[in-house]
């Protein structure tokens, strides 16, 4: 809704939104908050898809990826959503366990640095976690080097934030049984742990830390949107843990054809070319015109790390305990 009508909204009149569109089929996509925001991919995606589908595409935004899964679990099989978009591989095992998802059935050549075979969840974008610091500052070259340095970083809590959980898995994937020792060494480098990405990133920009846990693509925002080349992502020798963001079709959808059409659209150029400069991630399928100018300056890791969804789910609780014990000393 570009021009909201306040009074009906305030009166809680449920009826005002859809009356005129009753004939048009509605596809409801449940996603995370920043996807649907004015500055996220949502509005452009909606416009592009509605041009081709003769339907009404509605986004329902809720918190971050983890909140999204919780929301789906709250709604259960009764949910009105047809598609869930925005889970990552640390959450897909739990999502699969709900039994609410159907196979996506899409065959496509993905531009991921890893092979993708998941029958239920289809990637729409991906990125590497990285510490982002200021150009010109001494940059550690590995997690170990960071742990041994005096560099001060701010990270997110793995219990409340998806990047925080990503770092937990990063250390686990890189160091396995030695992860707790690495965390113990990292403890004095961590200024603080924030509930979400926004708080941490805001604190870094305000100079509270030398670097922040974010993505290798974060400097692209500053470069492209603000013409500011002062932010750099640090390359670490252990490799970088990936975040692959996926969508899935709900088995109980009342619009199965539209849902299939949306998933096919999702990996097409029309959708994928919107992603880099709105979600600030790599598109899952590089569009024909390539990546936007500026993305070629980004640091690309030599090694990609990613635990399988089942592995990530199985290791999470123990990894959390290690993390908590190491940082509570």
């Amino acid at each position, binding site marked *: 809704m570009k021009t909201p009508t306040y009074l009906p909204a*305030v009166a809680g009149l449920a009826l005002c939104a859809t009356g005129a569109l009753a004939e048009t089929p509605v596809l409801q996509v449940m996603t995370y908050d920043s996807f649907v*925001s004015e500055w996220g991919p949502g509005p452009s995606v909606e416009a592009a898809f509605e041009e081709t589908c003769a339907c009404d595409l509605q986004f329902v935004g809720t918190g971050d990826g983890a909140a999204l899964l919780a929301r789906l679990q709250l709604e259960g099989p009764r949910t009105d959503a047809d598609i869930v978009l925005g889970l990552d591989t640390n959450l897909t095992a739990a999502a699969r366990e709900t039994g609410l998802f159907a196979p996506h059935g899409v065959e496509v050549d993905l531009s991921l640095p890893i092979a993708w075979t998941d029958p239920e969840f289809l990637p729409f974008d991906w990125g590497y976690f990285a510490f982002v610091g200021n150009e010109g500052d001494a940059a550690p070259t590995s997690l170990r080097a960071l742990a041994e340095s005096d560099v001060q970083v701010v990270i997110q809590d793995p219990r409340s934030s998806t990047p925080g959980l990503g770092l937990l898995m990063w250390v686990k994937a890189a160091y396995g049984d030695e992860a707790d020792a690495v965390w113990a060494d990292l403890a004095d480098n961590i200024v603080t742990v924030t509930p979400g990405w926004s708080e941490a990133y805001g604190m870094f920009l305000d100079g509270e830390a030398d670097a922040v846990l974010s993505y290798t693509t974060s400097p692209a925002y500053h470069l492209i949107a603000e013409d500011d080349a002062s932010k750099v992502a640090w390359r670490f020798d252990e490799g970088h843990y990936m975040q692959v963001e996926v969508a899935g079709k709900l088995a109980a959808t009342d619009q199965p054809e539209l849902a299939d059409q949306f998933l096919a659209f999702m990996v097409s150029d029309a959708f994928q070319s919107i992603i880099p400069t709105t979600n600030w991630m790599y598109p899952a399928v590089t569009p024909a015109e390539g990546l936007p100018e500026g993305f070629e300056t980004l640091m690309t890791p030599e090694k990609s790390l990613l635990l399988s969804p089942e592995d990530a789910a199985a290791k999470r609780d123990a990894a959390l305990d290690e993390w908590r014990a190491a*940082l509570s000393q």
Partner: protein
Amino acid sequence: MARSPVAITPFWPGAAAAALVLLLTIGTLAAVAWRAKWDAGLSVADWAAIRFTIVQALVSAGLSVVLAIPVARALARRRFAGRQMLITLLGAPFLLPVIVAVLGLLAVFGRGGMVNNALTGLGFEPISIFGFHGVVLAHVFFNLPLAIRLILQGWLAIPAERFRLAATLNASVWRMLEWPMLRAVAPSTFLVIFLICLTSFAVALTLGGGPRATTVELAIYQALRFDFDLGRAALLACVQFALCVMAAAVVWRISLVDGMGAGLDRVVQRWDTDRPVLDYIFIAAATVFLLLPLSMVVLRGLPGLFDLPTSIWAAALRSVIVAIGSAMLCVAMALALALRGGALVSVIGVLPLAASGLVVGTGAFLIVFPFVRPSDVALIVTMLVNATLALPFALRAVAPAVAAVQSDFGRLAISLNLTGWSWVRIVVLPRVRRPLGFAAGLAAALSMGDLGVITLFAGQAQETLPLAMYRLMGAYRMADAAGAALVLLALSLALFWICDRGGRADA
């Protein structure tokens, strides 16, 4: 909150308000527990979180009250130009969304903040704000204003006649009037702040420096968001309620009830206002501590203010409407409950403080979802929940005033057969205008800054200002977000000021 010997107000408004509070606190908890699979117990980490939660809440609340007493006393004793404005401004930290206040605090006490710049400039070692002391500092920053206001209300409620009496008797105002007043007001102020700190989450985590600073509320967040373990969330919410009940029981034991009789609303004159310098030192210290981080919020926000996206203004309008709605509802509920009086009302008046915002939101979602689309009722539910969450503060301001009216004029009214709505309109309302205005302002401003329920319910068309601000931050637009925060601060203060002013004939 003594009940008058004869019921002079009808039963149902108080009962309806009580029912709504119970529904949104215990009812939502029950809705979560209902859906839970019960295999949860408390882990070692949970016990550590409970310990940390209690200790930081005790220290934060204690410090807030102890520091507030001299400031409130000074403000009650002195009259100076700009005093009203200062009192309103001092209330601001309490009204801010957490993240805004935290970034403001960091601009003063953080690594690149003013304090450390000054320290390093003078050749000292910089200090770190992160740790237990940071949590306490932030909680005092948030709650000192509330403590000052609640205690100041106590001071202003002492009738002029008693000061005359004290002066006539040449008795110590402190021992005869102020100390008994504090015995009545300070413990309940402590309780309110203790409970606020008990359910703190983002402040504790962000400034606590790591998982040591885990509170029960964070554990609830984790259980609801990441583990989808409703049973554990419900169990932890019960722990919060249990802590609340225990704290309330202790406080009510040590609170005193005022028994000195009524006043006739004369302008207070005092004869004990010696040592003005000390008073002004207290006022100045509190002003610097509270307003410095706020001015940083303003400075951070100014650059982004002038090219804010238009959607921010739509969100701001929505927030203002929700705030006004919840303020009216909150004041009506507070008045109804205060007129009803009794022990149940005292319990209901603290329950919302102990409620976990997340459990309330989740429970409300579970209750609403089978019947309507959550986004369709997002603003209504936000209004109801915010009115309920602000109720303890409103009740704390309104109930003593109403009880005083009842004990002072109740018998007279009954002998005149002045009951029901006429009694409320003719006797009660004019005499409780000041606390009502304060309560309405507080409720409105708290509702402006709220980011609890709305995150679970709102769609794109129900975005409120705090939510829009968070979405800006999530889209890397920190400057715009800081601008939005400034708008939020200004609107919250304006709403608070208008309501508070409207209720104040004198002061």
